[in-house]
């Protein structure tokens, strides 16, 4: 019994990481109706940037974040204004195919630069440290990750609803033309949104890198987990996404308990079940 409880708790904490994957994805969809197929690969890119930073500067991954976050944000701004802004419009094909192309480019660029060998970020003591709570062992890193996920989502909510920047995001998302009348340059606003999303991606990437080993090819899988968390939780609801991530995480860890090879499939099945009975997710605020 305690083993199952332990698995569920691990799943909940894993959900925090998945919610982080999803946060950037749904932010971008919310502001500009863009689904970035390269999202997962950008998470991995962040992990590799974290790797290079820790290796070159000899610092802890958390410290490396101080560099990786602004770099990823800058990449996001340039990417949005240089490429992705041109794909926005009523046709879904251009953004889909361009971000798909981007995904291939990023994956192979990483492959070229770092080879296919799995890498890992070393967090030092917290990699293996754990707390004992009533017989259940809670990893410090997963606990921290969950806490950071909650903080990030709360932070994004704050930005969206209590700042001028967030007002701009919501206005542009509501009505691009009228937002321009207010003096908002939508190209710039979209750039800022992508920069913010990639700053979150940076956090997700570094935390992922500390938790498991990564290689250039696993980006697609991370995109799928983030996507599943969003759909399970319900579109347009950031806290719902946290719940979605938790449900996905729990499904996976329970699946892993049944059979280690079953972990990911179990998550997909949970996703399909939710899709079948609640197509708009558990707490939707926006229709697909």
């Amino acid at each position, binding site marked *: 019994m305690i083993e199952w409880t332990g698995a569920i708790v691990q799943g909940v904490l894993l959900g925090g990481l998945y919610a982080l994957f999803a946060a950037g994805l749904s932010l971008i969809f919310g502001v500009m109706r863009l689904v970035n197929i390269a999202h997962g690969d950008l998470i991995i890119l962040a992990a590799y940037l974290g790797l290079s930073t820790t290796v070159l500067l000899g610092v802890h991954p958390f410290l490396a974040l101080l560099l990786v976050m602004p770099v990823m944000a800058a990449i996001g701004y340039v990417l949005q204004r240089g490429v992705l802004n041109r794909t926005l419009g009523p046709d*879904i*094909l251009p953004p889909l195919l361009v971000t798909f192309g981007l995904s291939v*480019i990023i994956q192979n660029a990483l492959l070229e630069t770092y080879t296919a060998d799995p890498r890992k970020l070393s967090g030092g003591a917290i990699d293996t440290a754990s707390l004992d709570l009533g017989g259940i062992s809670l990893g410090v890193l997963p606990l921290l990750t969950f806490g950071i996920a909650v903080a990030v989502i709360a932070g994004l909510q704050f930005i969206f609803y209590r700042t001028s920047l967030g007002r701009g995001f919501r206005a542009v998302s509501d009505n691009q033309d009228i937002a321009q009348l207010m003096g908002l340059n939508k190209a710039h606003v979209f750039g800022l949104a992508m920069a913010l999303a990639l700053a979150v991606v940076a956090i997700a990437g570094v935390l992922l890198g500390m938790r498991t080993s990564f290689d250039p090819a696993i980006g697609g899988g991370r995109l799928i987990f983030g996507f599943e968390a969003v759909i399970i939780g319900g579109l347009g609801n950031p806290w719902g996404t946290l719940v979605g991530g938790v449900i996905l995480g729990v499904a996976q860890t329970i699946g892993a308990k049944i059979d280690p090879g079953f972990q990911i499939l179990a998550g997909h099945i949970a996703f399909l079940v939710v899709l079948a009975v609640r197509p708009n997710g558990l707490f939707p605020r926006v229709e697909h």
Partner: protein
Amino acid sequence: MPTVSRSTRASRVAMAIGLLGLIVLIAAPWWAGRADLRLMGEIYLYLSLACLWNLMAGYAGLVSVGQQAYVGFGGYMLFALSIFGGLNPVVAIVLGGVLAAIISVPVAALIFRLKGAYFAIGTWVMAEVFRLSFAQIQPLGGGSGTSLPVAIVKELGDKKAAREATSYWLALGAAVVVLLAVYLLLRSRRGLALTAIRDSEVAASGLGIDIWRTKLEVYVVTSAFTAIIGGLIFLQKLRISPDAAFSVNDWTAFVIFIVVIGGIGTLEGPIIGTLLFFALREVLADFGTIYLMVLGLVAIVVMLKAPKGVWGLIRERFDLELFPLSYRVRTKDD
């Protein structure tokens, strides 16, 4: 009195050339070397996949990045039905297509709940479900896959040359069938409905076209044919594994690049795209990752600068159409 015709001089010429070319290609086992024969077979199979993906995405608006689900499914059905069902490989492949059609219905019921780019990712999830599921099937080699037994391979022909010719003709035949089927579909009323949906879903449904049903039909038919192509692909490869069968790169990324670069939403586009793709591959394949990066870059540039692809550019420039699909009004003066 104006008349409505469907073909142009260019399309009639193209048809004639096409027929002649087809005869030459049928005779290939007699004039082409083994490696060339394999290459051409590969080209036909990719052309088929591209045509099918284009039908779904370019005409029905169903952008899927998960068609590898059916390529792999068809491949595995070939192995399963011939090894455990004792069926002739060709029969197994066709039956695989039928089974794919059946399984695509519940799949569609689920993923059609998603729209736009979310639908696309949903198809990818489905492909992953297929991959992980087949990796669990131990009799088919589990995660590492299995090879096609010699006895079954020999059912294609006793001598190697005969087998290779048969393989080649099957691939050529498949490509011709797919092209013909898609062409006839687009020429029919159904095709008109599809073109209407492609141009404007809202307007199309206002005309009484049942969008959901039309899309479902396209999805089922495309998946069935894709599975058959998958069977043919792995008949050529003689070996199957979950990663190879359900590879996003091989069966989706490349196909998408072909269609995008060639020209989405046209019949000529996939043909041009396939030729360009293989030309590019011959030149760059030695460079591995750089090759893929170039592909990605070309796709992005094409999408941003020439979204109608190479054929789109040609068509606009010369008002050319090789497959007689549109309607032209001819007045007395023409």
